[in-house]
């Protein structure tokens, strides 16, 4: 019964204490691998030649494209966690989507800022309200809304359930972002890496892009595991403070 063994392993990992143990073991390795990947990626990004049309400005793509991918991947991780909260009530699922929201907002901000900095010399404008740019901007606002919602509620369980519903409703925006360039006539170019028929990018530019994408993805997972660990500690601090307050109350009652 290998499926049962895998399920048991996953259930074991859903235990916060086991997760903390695993996090302390893997985080130094994840941070090290991320640093090495960024060193290789940045070297390849600046060692390569410019594009025949874009010139050296093609280098902006090596940070813009990975950040844009991560903005969507982070939301997809949050949606999977939201299902975990609503369906299985996994103890780590709400910790996961709460910890991921600020990371997603940051990567979306990088994608918007670097896209704008690429757009000015290439398109002649900082911003246009086309389908791709607008839908990514909506994603950024959704991240900010989810962060605010999580911070507005004292009860983490209730905040997690309300956030999960909102995350799943907002997930409709992810395919809109992905296919906006195919469904509507946009200034933003269509998909050139992940597309039917293979990548249209020359390998000179594809390798630095892929290495930087893996580096950014590793950075996200490293920060996500660290932020989840922080959130578990935060909840333990609140629980222990509540317990201390109860104990103090009982001592006072006995004294009276």
């Amino acid at each position, binding site marked *: 019964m290998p499926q049962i063994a895998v399920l048991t392993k996953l259930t074991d990992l859903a235990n916060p204490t086991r997760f903390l143990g695993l996090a302390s073991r893997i985080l130094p390795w994840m941070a090290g691998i991320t640093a090495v990947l960024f060193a290789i990626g940045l070297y390849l990004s600046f060692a390569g030649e410019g594009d025949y049309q874009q010139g050296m*400005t093609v*280098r902006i793509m090596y940070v813009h494209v990975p950040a844009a991918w991560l903005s969507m991947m982070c939301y997809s991780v949050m949606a999977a966690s939201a299902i975990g909260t609503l369906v299985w009530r996994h103890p780590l699922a709400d910790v996961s989507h709460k910890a991921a929201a600020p990371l997603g907002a940051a990567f979306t901000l990088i994608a918007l800022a670097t896209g704008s900095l690429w757009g000015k010399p290439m398109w002649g404008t900082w911003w246009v309200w086309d389908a791709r740019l607008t839908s990514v901007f909506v994603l950024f606002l959704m991240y900010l809304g989810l962060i605010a919602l999580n911070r507005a509620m004292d009860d983490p369980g209730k905040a997690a359930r309300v956030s999960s519903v909102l995350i799943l409703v907002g997930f409709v925006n992810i395919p809109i972002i992905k296919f906006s360039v195919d469904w509507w006539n946009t200034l933003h170019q269509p998909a050139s890496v992940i597309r039917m028929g293979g990548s249209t990018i020359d390998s000179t530019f594809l390798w630095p892009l892929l290495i930087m994408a893996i580096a950014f993805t590793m950075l996200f997972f490293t920060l996500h595991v660290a932020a989840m660990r922080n959130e578990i500690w935060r909840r333990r*601090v609140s629980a222990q403070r509540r317990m201390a307050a109860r104990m103090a109350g009982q001592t006072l009652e006995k004294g009276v």
Partner: protein
Amino acid sequence: MTHGFYIAMSYGIAALISLCLIVWVWLDGHARKRELAELEASGIRRRSAPKSEGEKA
């Protein structure tokens, strides 16, 4: 403005936001760890926390 300016600004902004994120997560973890240590030192522990040698006896 030259293309070099847009490239430098892009990498600068991406580095700044990433570094802010890393420092924020690190400082948050450091603060939570300190709070937990202070609570443990004052004798407030989780019920499920492993017992110390003195408590076992």
